[in-house]
């Protein structure tokens, strides 16, 4: 029985990719917390993960509404996050046009970090399962 390593690892590698792109966007929001006119952004996670996943994956999220963003990979096959970027609805708009809420961005960043670590742990377990299978538990 040939083992498809990509299918075996499941959705986690794709999720890691999207989490790391989301970390970029949140870091940009935090760096621009004092920039006048800067508008905070975030990634539409479901759409981005659907685009990052391999077709045919049963766990891959699909679009359920006609308005959902569908996958569109760039020429080199990598998925651009730009199309999944959405502007945040500001909780407390500032007079200078900046919509970054540092506390909220910080908590979102922490949440993103924990999820990234969880995905890493799942991958780690997959690898150790594989090692167990190869060595026969010795």
């Amino acid at each position, binding site marked *: 029985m040939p083992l498809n390593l990509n299918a075996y690892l499941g959705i986690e590698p794709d999720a890691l*990719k999207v989490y790391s*792109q989301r970390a970029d966007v949140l870091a940009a929001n*935090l*760096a621009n*917390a*004092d920039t006048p006119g800067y508008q905070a952004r975030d990634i539409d996670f479901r759409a981005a993960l659907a685009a990052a996943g391999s077709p045919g994956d049963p766990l891959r999220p699909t679009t359920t509404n006609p308005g959902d963003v569908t996958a569109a990979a760039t020429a080199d096959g990598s998925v*651009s*996050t730009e199309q999944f970027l959405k502007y945040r609805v500001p909780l407390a708009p500032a007079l200078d046009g900046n919509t970054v809420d540092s506390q909220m961005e910080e908590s979102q*960043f922490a949440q993103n970090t924990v999820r990234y670590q969880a995905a890493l742990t799942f991958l*780690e377990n997959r690898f150790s399962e594989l090692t167990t299978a190869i060595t026969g538990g010795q």
Partner: protein
Amino acid sequence: MADFNIFNIAGSGMSAESVRLNTVASNLANADSVSGSPNTAYKARYPVFQAIQSSLMSPGAAPDPTQAADAAVQVSGIVQTTAPGTANYQPGNPLADANGYVYSSNVNVVEQMADMISASRSYQNDVQVLETSKSLMLDTLKLGQI
């Protein structure tokens, strides 16, 4: 994060906030400076922050549409406020003009202190992002090593 861009973004935020801290230090140090004329009196300075695509920070780099998510911050300039300072009657001061007035700076010390706290909090946020990303990357490097 995968292409180390997050370090550029958080780093740009730290350097911008440190410029802001520098102007606060300059304004606070000169809060009590006096001058012989209203025009040469010290005026409070403020940095102007501007969002910039982080892939454009290195000189000569071409715009890359896939990197548009990464907005770094840059200081596009330092502006001086135009509000007039107060004129104080101090005929004994060697800097006094013909009428015996010296002109003090327009620095509002309380405002500067609040600005300093805001800058240092933002700086701390950027440092936190940097530390977290670094440890995540190290964890990723150790993947599968058990």
